Structure formats: structure tokens, C-alpha cells
């Protein structure tokens, strides 16, 4: 910020006005919410930058040290000098690391328009100050309490003078100067040290307990001597009956001036725990990439004939996920990951039929045709940019609904950014170096700390953990280290490993020299990503195993494919044999059932022999050849078909005659045996047909007896008799009656209650009963608020969500957030009404 000759700015707007375009652009880039919609002028921009929502968003995106700096400014005087701030951050000892990092942190805050003003007059934006300054409701992360001045507000002047005297200061004529003198004493290191030297041991222990916060403590109405010693000197000040607080100045003295117990000026280093040969990392990642492709294919093949049904609420049922996990032979969370990945890549979707099921999309068939490396790049790119987060599956959302795979509620907008950031951190390590997950998480937590510390596993940390494990599954990393293809995916050229492992990232802003091309801080734009993906695919392609055209057949009736197979070969083998084990190789086992399956699929035994002979590197073992022949020998020996009826006759010439008769063609007769004909017509039609042809057939029962034909009376399934429908409504019972009367009386009260005439400003006097009162919204609010205080009932006009107007008598209980909560006399219960739906109010006249 150049504040050379110009007068010091007096407001944020003025401070913004003097910033150059680049610096404004930086502000708007980091706080894009400020330009939606585009503000008309800088004053409006400054106003918007000061709104609570926007400031919160900006604070949440600060790194830990910048946030700590902002927190320190919030407990410093307003405005504060740079030296004040430095004292708070670096302590009395002026920690050199902190002192070195502070200008960068302050620059960040300035850039973000959270701080403005010159070095001598640093001002934190008021909203930020309110958010970060300690108050009894929202303790500050600094653990500091209120200042002496804040804590003594409301204390009697006599008591203040007493404290001042006991602390060894001269009495003053007014409280303000007394408090100032006391604060000055507390801030003076030497005098304060002398004062504390006199303190009893127990008193010092009390101070030690409160010094790093929370600064509040409980005391009994009659405190012990060591507490009294502190209270008498203002080293503890009462805030409420039974509660005391350690004033900020005292705490800072005891802390040696530090606002934070641990100022974290330097980002934690992402440490490599193991270093592998880069070639091995790339190969491992490529192996995993191949597995990823195979898994997706397995998954969708498994769903080829009717995938699982879609739950009514959307998504995959737990049982279907379990089944899929078993079919893929992976744990359920991993299965969920693959399912989600295929979904996000558009390879599977719901078919949208009445009985909705999941199935592969046409895009899947196109995807299958691509070379393997491109297929992988598509998956990896999808994963990198997707907001859907499979790690959440199996958990519950805020409303305690189970989150199911492919279901709603899995989008987390932070996911792509975290994934990108984690991979960028990995890319910052030398090639082949695998970091400890914890050090990556620590770094992420530093870069984007939580303002209010939570349990360990906040969303970003969980996302980061998932990223690490998913990257390994997908083959972006291999043995924990980023592979060359993974690096390419990030859009970074592969760099030869520099010796030092100094991290990059927000460290860019540190005044430290870098001799490495900086990695993109933000996820790539779609076109950039497409280029990066293509580059990644190019790197991956030579690492993927070449599909084989042969298998090894063994006498224990197994076939081993010592690598991936060409697709037609794999398809045929998966019909002819059962897959026994998968991985780099595939082990198939031939069983009678699997051979039968191949025969059912229309293959002849000789085809199978030829197929095995052609694709086996070794002679076909005799037991396998025997197995195929043995199954083929029996295959099709029994024939099964469907017929509706049959004709049986001992005289086969008669059957010949029937078959030859053209009139019988409609009956669909076929000879099964010399004395049996099968018919496609049902028995009745067959009987009629044969009779029409001049024969005299008799019907046969299932047991073979002759059926005596007799007209069967037609019957419906069991039915209940219809209920009588009386003319007019039924006689009401007592409860219904009393309820009805109550409702009528209440409505009556609303309609006829004598009302005070509405205010003259509202136009016509609401004289006649039945008119809806009309009042302006301000008037409505005032009246309702008054009624809350007096507890009176009001008469209101109200339009419900369907637009129907009604009149009600209500007794408002409270008004907040645009809603009136009131006891509704008309409905006889407590209800809530949006204020904007109330067309008007009128007080009920006193009876």
C-alpha cells in the first residue's frame, strides 16, 4: 500500500480508493462474493466487504498465521501501531521467526481488505473485530479476557479507588483516570513484576491457571485469602456474582506479551516418510490404474443384466452396495468409491424406467472403445474435479438421514479444491517421496484453520484423508508418492527432484527464495485440465501392461492368464470358466457347470477344443479335453419345451390322420412320440377344435383320469358385500360436536369482538365487524410487539400459503425473525405466522 504523500485514509472506502488496480483485483479474486453483483462504487464495495457474512467467509479462508494476526489485532488497541502488533505476535522477546513472517501476514490481511490504515494506524475491519474480539459468549482463541477498562465498567468509583490504592497507586479524583493508571501499571513489565513478587504462592498458582485461558474463574461469596489478595489489587476483576476474570493486560504480562501460546508463523513442513524409486512409484501407480479400469469394467459387467434398483429417496441400498462389494471383492467403502466414480464419469446412471434401475450408459460403451490410458485419464480427471464425495457414504447427514451411494447429499463443494491442494503438496515433494498423512493434514489445517477449533476430523481433514486413499486406489499415487502421470494431471511439468524438501504453497508468500516452478495454486480450468489429462494419459500409456493373446492350461483344470487378456479372449474365457482369482494375472477354473454355460451359449465341443488349442501356450491337458467331451455328451440329452395341451391316443394312425388334417393347423399340433401330440392351443380350444373336426375327444385330468365335463358355474374370488350408503352425513358423536362448537365460538369471537378503531392513518375506520383490518407492515410489527409486552389478544387478517384470507384472534407470545408466535384462539393452539402474511391487525376492545 502506498500511503506516501497522501493523507492517511479515514475509512476502508478511502483505503480502497488509493489501492491500484492490481491490488483491487487481488482482493476481488480472493473474495469473489464482493462482486456478485458488481457494486456500483468503492463505498458500496467497502460496505459489502464489511458485512458479517463476507467477513466470515474471508476469515475462514485465512491461513493460521494470518488469522492469528487478525486475532491479535482484535485484542490490540484500535487503531494499533505495527509495533503493538509485533509485540503481541512475537512477544516481549521478539521471536525472529514471527517477526519475519508478520509483514506477509499483514499484507494478506490488507489485500483481503480486513485491515486498513498505515503502519501507525492499523485498523481491523469493525465486523472482523466484533467477530474475533473476546466476549464472555465467544471466547477468543487467544484465551484473553476483557481489558481493565471493559471489566471495570459499571464498578462503583469507591471500589475502583480501593483497588488502585491497594495496588500501590495514588488515589485519583475520578474513575477514568484511576482505571487508566491501573491499566498502565499492569502493562508496565517492571512495576508489574515487582507487584507480583509480593503475591502469595497460591495467588500466583491461580494466575497461572487462568493465564492461557479461559480467563474466567468461579469464586465463592467469601473468597479465600489468596483470591482476595488478587481481587483487592484488580488482578482479578469480578464480572458477575461468583465469577471473576483475568484482565487482558495482566494476562499479557504473564504471557510475556504473547497473544497466542504458539504463534505458528511457519507452515508445517510436509515430511516424506519413505522415498521409493520414481520408476517403481510410476509402475505401481500404473498397476493400480489398470486395476481401476478392470474394476469399473467388472462393476458394470456385473450390472449388465439388470443393475440394482434405485431407492425411492435416490441412491443404492445398503444391501446392493454390500453385494457389489462382494462381487468386486473389495471392502464396502472402496466399492462405494468405484460406484460413485463411474457415476460421476457418466458411465452409469439410472435408466429412468418405471421400475428404476442403475445401468451402464451409452457413454460407457464409447469409453470402452478408448485406449486404456485415455480411459484412466477420464476417470482421474472426473475424480479430481468432482464435488461428489464417496467417503461420506454410510454416514448420516445433518438431518440424520443415511447417506447412500449414488444418492443425494454427497456433494461437498470443497472437495475439488482439497484434492487439488493435497496433490499439489505431494507434488512439492521430491519425486518418489511419500509423505505421512498426518503431516499433510497438519499442513492443510494450517492453511485453512478452523476459527473455532473442533474435533480432529473436520470435513477438510476427512476430505484430505479420502483424497490420499482414493489417489492410491486410482493410481494417481503409487506407494504413497505422486506418480509422474499424477503430476501431469495437475498440469505441472515433471521436475527433476531438487535436494531440499522445502514446501511450496502459501509459503510462496514467504520472503523465501524458490527455484522451483510454482505449482498452480487453484484447480485448473476445464480446458487446461483437458490438456493436463491428455499429458497424463501419454505418460501412463507405456506403463500399462500389453494385453496377451494366450493362457496357460493346467491339468488341475485351471487356466492362468499371466497378464491382461485381449478382450475377445477374456470374454470367451469368462463364459467357459469361472474366475478364481484376479490381480495382475487371472486364474480361471473349468468346471462342468462353466463348460455347460459355454455350450448353452451356442458353442459346440469342437469349437471349445479349437479355442483352447489356439490360445494355449501349452498342450491342452487330457482331463480338460475329457471334461469338455463329457459335458458335451450329456448336453442337450434332455429336451424341455412348453405345450398347452396334449393329445394321446393308442392308435397312431388316428393321430396321423389328425396331423394331416388341414383344419387342425390352428391347434399347433406337433408329434412328440408315436402316440402323443403336443398342442399350442389350450385344452378347451383343443377339445372344441377336435370336436369340430368330427372326433370325440375326452378331457384328461393331471392324474390321467377322464374328466366328466359339466358346466362349471363361474365364481368371483371372495368379495365383501357393499356397505350401505346412507342419505346425508352420519350423526356426529359427542367429541366431534364439542370440537365443532369450540371452533365456531372462537370464530365468532374473532368476527364480533369489539375492536378499537384502527389508526387514522390506515384509512377507513374498521367499523363494521367482518372487515379485515389493513395496516402497514411497520404498524403491524409495532402492534404485535406491543401485544407481546402487554399479553393482549389481537385480531388479525391473515393470508395462508394457498392465498386464502381469514381472520383470527391471536395472543402473541414473541416476535422474531419475521415470525409471530402466538396462541391462536380460533384454532385453540400455539401457531407461528409469518409477519408478511398478516394483512392487518387490530386490538380487541376491552370488554
Amino acid at each position, binding site marked *: 500500500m502506498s500511503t506516501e504523500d497522501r493523507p492517511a485514509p479515514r475509512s476502508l472506502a478511502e483505503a480502497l480508493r488509493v489501492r491500484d488496480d492490481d491490488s483491487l483485483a487481488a482482493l476481488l479474486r480472493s473474495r469473489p462474493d464482493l462482486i456478485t453483483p458488481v457494486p456500483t462504487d468503492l463505498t458500496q464495495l467497502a460496505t459489502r466487504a464489511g458485512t458479517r457474512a463476507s467477513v466470515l467467509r474471508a476469515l475462514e479462508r485465512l491461513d493460521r498465521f494470518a488469522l492469528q494476526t487478525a486475532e491479535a489485532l482484535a485484542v490490540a488497541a484500535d487503531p494499533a501501531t505495527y509495533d503493538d502488533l509485533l509485540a503481541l505476535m512475537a512477544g516481549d522477546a521478539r521471536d525472529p521467526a514471527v517477526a519475519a513472517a508478520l509483514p506477509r501476514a499483514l499484507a494478506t490481511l490488507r489485500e483481503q481488505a480486513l485491515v486498513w490504515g498505515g503502519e501507525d494506524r492499523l485498523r481491523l475491519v469493525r465486523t472482523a473485530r466484533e467477530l474475533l474480539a473476546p466476549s464472555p459468549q465467544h471466547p477468543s482463541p487467544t484465551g484473553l479476557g476483557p481489558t481493565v477498562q471493559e471489566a471495570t465498567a459499571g464498578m462503583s468509583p469507591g471500589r475502583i479507588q480501593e483497588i488502585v490504592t491497594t495496588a500501590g497507586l495514588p488515589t485519583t479524583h475520578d474513575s477514568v483516570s484511576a482505571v487508566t493508571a491501573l491499566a498502565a501499571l499492569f502493562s508496565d513489565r517492571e512495576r508489574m513484576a515487582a507487584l507480583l513478587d509480593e503475591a502469595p504462592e497460591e495467588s500466583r498458582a491461580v494466575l497461572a491457571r487462568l493465564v492461557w485461558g479461559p480467563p474466567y474463574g468461579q469464586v465463592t461469596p467469601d473468597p479465600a485469602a489468596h483470591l482476595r489478595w488478587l481481587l483487592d489489587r484488580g488482578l482479578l476483576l469480578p464480572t458477575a456474582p461468583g465469577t471473576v476474570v483475568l484482565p487482558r493486560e495482566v494476562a499479557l504480562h504473564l504471557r510475556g506479551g504473547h497473544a497466542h501460546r504458539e504463534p505458528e508463523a511457519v507452515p508445517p513442513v510436509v515430511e516424506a516418510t519413505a522415498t521409493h524409486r520414481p520408476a517403481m512409484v510410476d509402475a505401481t501407480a500404473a*498397476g493400480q490404474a489398470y486395476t481401476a479400469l478392470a474394476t469399473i469394467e467388472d462393476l458394470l459387467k456385473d450390472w449388465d443384466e439388470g443393475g440394482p434398483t434405485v431407492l425411492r429417496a435416490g441412491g443404492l441400498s445398503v444391501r446392493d452396495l454390500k453385494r457389489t462389494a462382494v462381487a468386486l471383492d473389495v471392502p464396502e467403502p472402496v466399492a462405494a468409491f468405484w460406484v460413485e466414480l463411474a457415476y460421476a464419469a457418466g458411465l452409469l446412471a439410472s435408466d429412468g424406467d418405471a421400475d428404476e434401475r442403475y445401468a451402464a450408459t451409452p457413454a460407457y460403451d464409447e469409453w470402452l472403445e478408448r485406449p486404456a490410458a485415455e480411459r484412466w485419464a477420464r476417470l482421474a480427471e472426473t475424480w479430481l474435479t468432482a464435488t461428489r464425495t464417496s467417503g461420506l457414504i454410510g454416514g448420516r447427514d445433518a438431518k440424520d438421514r443415511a447417506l447412500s451411494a449414488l444418492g443425494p447429499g454427497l456433494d461437498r463443494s470443497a472437495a475439488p479444491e482439497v484434492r487439488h491442494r493435497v496433490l499439489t503438496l505431494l507434488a512439492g515433494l521430491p519425486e518418489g517421496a511419500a509423505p505421512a498423512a498426518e503431516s499433510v493434514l497438519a499442513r492443510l489445517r494450517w492453511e485453512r484453520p478452523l476459527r473455532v477449533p473442533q474435533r480432529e476430523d473436520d470435513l477438510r481433514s476427512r476430505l484430505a484423508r479420502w483424497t490420499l486413499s482414493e489417489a492410491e486406489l486410482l493410481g494417481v499415487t503409487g*506407494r504413497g508418492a505422486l506418480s509422474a502421470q499424477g503430476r501431469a494431471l495437475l498440469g505441472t511439468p515433471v521436475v527433476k527432484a531438487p535436494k531440499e524438501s522445502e514446501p511450496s504453497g502459501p509459503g510462496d508468500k514467504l520472503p523465501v527464495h524458490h527455484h522451483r516452478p510454482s505449482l498452480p495454486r487453484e484447480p485448473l480450468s476445464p480446458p487446461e485440465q483437458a490438456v493436463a489429462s491428455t499429458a497424463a494419459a501419454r505418460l501412463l500409456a507405456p506403463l500399462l*501392461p500389453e494385453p496377451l493373446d494366450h493362457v496357460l492350461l493346467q*491339468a488341475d483344470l485351471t487356466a492362468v492368464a*499371466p497378464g491382461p487378456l485381449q478382450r475377445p479372449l477374456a470374454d470367451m474365457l469368462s463364459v467357459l470358466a469361472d474366475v478364481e482369482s484376479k490381480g*495382475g494375472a487371472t486364474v480361471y477354473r473349468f468346471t462342468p457347470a462353466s463348460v455347460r454355460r459355454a455350450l448353452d451359449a451356442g458353442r459346440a465341443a469342437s469349437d471349445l477344443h479349437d479355442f483352447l488349442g489356439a490360445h494355449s501356450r501349452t498342450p491342452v491337458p*487330457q482331463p480338460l479335453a475329457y471334461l469338455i467331451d463329457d459335458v458335451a455328451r*450329456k448336453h442337450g440329452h434332455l429336451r424341455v419345451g412348453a405345450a398347452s395341451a396334449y393329445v394321446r391316443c393308442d392308435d397312431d394312425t388316428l393321430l396321423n390322420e389328425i396331423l394331416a388334417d388341414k383344419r387342425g393347423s390352428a391347434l399347433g399340433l406337433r408329434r412328440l412320440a408315436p402316440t402323443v401330440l403336443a398342442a399350442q392351443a389350450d385344452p378347451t380350444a383343443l377339445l372344441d377344435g377336435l370336436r369340430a373336426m368330427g372326433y370325440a375327444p375326452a378331457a384328461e385330468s393331471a392324474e390321467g383320469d377322464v374328466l366328466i365335463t359339466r358346466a362349471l358355474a363361474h365364481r368371483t374370488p371372495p368379495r365383501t358385500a357393499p356397505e350401505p350408503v346412507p342419505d346425508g352425513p352420519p350423526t356426529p358423536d359427542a367429541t366431534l360436536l364439542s370440537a365443532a362448537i369450540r371452533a365456531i365460538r372462537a370464530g365468532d369471537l374473532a368476527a364480533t369482538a369489539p375492536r378499537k378503531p384502527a389508526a387514522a392513518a390506515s384509512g377507513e375506520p374498521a367499523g363494521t365487524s367482518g372487515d379485515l383490518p389493513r395496516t402497514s407492515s411497520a404498524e403491524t410489527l409495532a402492534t404485535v410487539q406491543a401485544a407481546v409486552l402487554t399479553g393482549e389478544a389481537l385480531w388479525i387478517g391473515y393470508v395462508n400459503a394457498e392465498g386464502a384470507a381469514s381472520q383470527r384472534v391471536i395472543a402473541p407470545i414473541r416476535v422474531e425473525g419475521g415470525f409471530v408466535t402466538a396462541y391462536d384462539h380460533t384454532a385453540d393452539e400455539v401457531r407461528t405466522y409469518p409477519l408478511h402474511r398478516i394483512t392487518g391487525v387490530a386490538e380487541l376492545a376491552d370488554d
Partner: protein
Amino acid sequence: MNGPLIVQSDKTLLLEVDHEQADDCRRAIAPFAELERAPEHIHTYRVTPLGLWNARAAGHDAEQVVDALVQYSRYPVPHALLVDIAETMDRYGRLTLTKHPAHGLVLTTTDRPVLEEILRSKRVIPLVGARIDPDSVAVHPSERGQIKQTLLKLGWPAEDLAGYVDGEAHPIELREDGWALRAYQKQAVENFWHGGSGVVVLPCGAGKTLVGAGSMAQAKSTTLILVTNTVSARQWKHELVKRTSLTEDEIGEYSGTRKEIRPVTIATYQVLTTKRKGIYPHLELFDSRDWGLIVYDEVHLLPAPVFKFTADLQARRRLGLTATLVREDGRESDVFSLIGPKRFDAPWKEIEAQGYIAPADCVEVRVNLTDSERLAYATAETEEKYRFCATTATKRKVTEALVRRFAGQQILVIGQYIDQLDELGEHLNAPVIKGETSNAQREKLFDAFREGEISVLVVSKVANFSIDLPEATVAIQVSGTFGSRQEEAQRLGRVLRPKADGHQAHFYSVVARDTIDQDFAAHRQRFLAEQGYAYRIVDADEMLAEGA
């Protein structure tokens, strides 16, 4: 990367045997991976927690295992699998059983949370005593076996460093006159002795008895040998007298008929597990002498009560001998925790290649049931079905044809059903050995068979185990105990003893087509096919036609 090994996601390892590095690779993975199948081209090894802990017990660490996989693997090894291996191996040795001078047997941990975790288990509580310090807890000495068994089930196997008692010393020497321990036998003895206790896995006919004798010569102390039956006991005695400095008088037999307790005592499982009025009266045998070594023959058949006794014998050295760790009851983990980890194994084919066991030609002969038999089979009760198809008359014809074909060679006909065997004996004019045949009679017939006085012997399943019939070159199996895989292995073992003239052995299995006999046969043969002994299948009709 063009190694011989492929690592599968289900933790099986496929080894291409024709690859030039195959031998190196096999040596590298053998300590931790169990050979599961060894057909002609690709051997399958499986990595199990037990196998990994076996490797830890033998002094290998996770890094070696990972290195072996990474070095020989053709494709990159999934990271998750390597992590899993390291984690599994890391579980071994967190807990150790040691002898403390003041507190006796003590369970110590290097990782306090593990101790806390296992001490919370209901099954561990009754086995431990007072907490000595945060990292150790006293264990009742009598529960040494129990706690090892329980901890293994909890997934935290304890390393037993509490040592062994030496037992009563007794001089035993090997008498290597005109013969010597084979290299692999020496290796097995050495591995066992070094490890303290454990199991040696060798194929039938590879000389397990000599490994036992070698171990006794190492221990030089009183020895209790547990065997499956009396014939086997006699066999052991015979071998020991022949191969070692022990004399007849030093070796006692403890069986249904004789109850001798000598410095070296051979007892049968059957007599030990005889229960009278709810107690095991012969259990005192274990305490009757201060045994320095206990040998379990055919560990895969160890009956459940013997496991229970063994749990109390953890202070003595234990040697298990077996052809296969496959147990039909799946109690492999009890063998690991109570007898000890696997100390040595060698695949059958490897020993065959060294010429120590005979190559075998395995043939399955499929016979057709006659039409009337098929109808009868279809209507038979479920529990009678196997008996019915296994004893079909057609099998007799095939057996006769086979006996004719191999006339002049020593032939064993093995079956399950006595009436079938009797009938066969009658038609083949051969003696039948079955359950009711007296031991004296059995030995007489076996001797006659060995001498070549009789060339065909029909035996029931009493001959399944541990009898030595060195000159049998042909075995014909007509029926078996349903689908028992280890029975099939034992029976094949009958013909695998090395032949004087290097003759090929033949193993015929006669099976009725399209019946459950065929299904059982498939199940039985799978084990052998996986050991590299693939069956050829021939039709009985063709075979009979050839023979005619």
C-alpha cells in the same frame, strides 16, 4: 519388470515354474507363502497371516517379505497388500512369553495398548494371573498352550521364548552305515532343532521317520512318539532299531495290547484318546517320564483330545511330522499354536525330481453303471447312494482287467467297503486285510507281499497310514472315504516309495460315471492334481477293449 511372480489381489502368488528366476523366487517366497497348488506350469502360493507369522518365527522380517515380492513380481505389487503384510507381520512378537526368575511364566508386551486389548478379552482373563507391571502379566504355567491358542485367535500371536525343559537324558545316535540322511532331511532336522518346536512337512515316502530319528539323535533324551495305529508303531520301532543306536529293549510300545513305558515309547492316538467313565485313563503316560521330546506322526490327523493334552506340554520340545498341513477339520491354527510353526517343507515334485520318490502315473477309470444299476442308483436313499455306486459290479471287471495287465508286479487293491473287498479278493484270488484281521496275520501278509510271495493284496482303509510296502508299484483304488483329500494323498503315497528298478508307479482310481462317486473323486483328486499329480481319465470300455 519381467519376474516370474504375479501377485494377485486375493493374496495368492502365481509362480511361473519355467521362468529362469523361478528357483530363486521360490526360495525367496517359501518362508512366508504356503504352496497351495503345484500343477505343471504355474504354482500357486498363498500368503496367510499364519504363513507370515511362521516367517516371523523363523526370523524373517516384513522388509524381506516385501522385498521378495517386489523383486520378483512381474507387475507392480498393490501398495495396500504390502501395507497389509507389514501390519500383519508386525502383530507377531508384540507379545512374548518368557520365564521370569521370580514370577514364573510371564506375558510381556512391547506395545502396551495390545496388552490392554487382550486383557479385556473374556477368553484371556481366566488364563492370566496378577499384573506385574504395566507391560507384563503373569500367566499360569499350566495355561501356556491355552494362552498361545487364544492369542492366535485374537490375532496377536505370542512368541514363546519360555524355553524347554531338557528332559531325562538318554543316549541316542544315528547309525549311518551304508546310508545317510538325505540333504533335505538334514535340513529339516536342523531347522526344527534351531526353532525349538514345530512341524516338518514332507511327502509320503520321503522319509519322515528318519527326520524323527535324526531329531531324537539331536535331543539325546527320552522321547515319546505318538503314531496313528499299532502297525505304524511297529514300523517306527523297526526303523529306529535299524537306523539308530537304540535297541529293542529301549523302545516300548504303548497300545491297546501292550503297555510298555521305556526311554523311547511309541503310543497310538487311539489308546490315548480312549475314554473310560469320562476320563482318559492313559493320559498319565505324558507324565510317566520326564520326556525331552515328543514326536507327533501324521499331525494332520491329530485327534482333538490330543490337542488338549498338548496344550499342557508346552515346556517340552515338540516335533510334528506330516505330508500335508491340510486338515479336513480346518484346525491348522491349533497346529501352529500348540505344536509350533512350520519349520520345513519341500514340494512333492521337487523330491521326486531328486529321485527320492517314484514318479507316478495316475489314471482315473470311468465305468458306466448298467441300466438296471442306474435305475437302482436313482431310487437309492441319499445316504446309500455312495455305497451303491462305489461298489458297482463293473468296477470288479475293470479291476480284474488291470490286475491282469500288470501281472507280475506288486499290486494293491484299496477299498472302503468290506463286502466289495471280499468279493474282489475272491475273484482275484488274493488275501484281504481288513479291520478284523489280527495284527499278527497282517504282518505275516505284509511280509509275504514284501518278499514277493503274493503279488496282489486287497486292503481296506486300515492300510491307509504308515505301513511300509516298498515294492508296491500299482495301486487300484475302488472306493474311498467319500471326498477325503488326505486319504487320497496317503494312498498315492503307497506307490511312491522309490522302486529298486526305477520302475514307474501306477495309481488307478476306478470311478462310476455320472454319480456322486465321480464328484467325490474330483474332490479327492484335486489335492493331488494341485501337487502336480494330474490324472488322466480313460473310459472303462476303451480300457477293457484294449486289454482284450
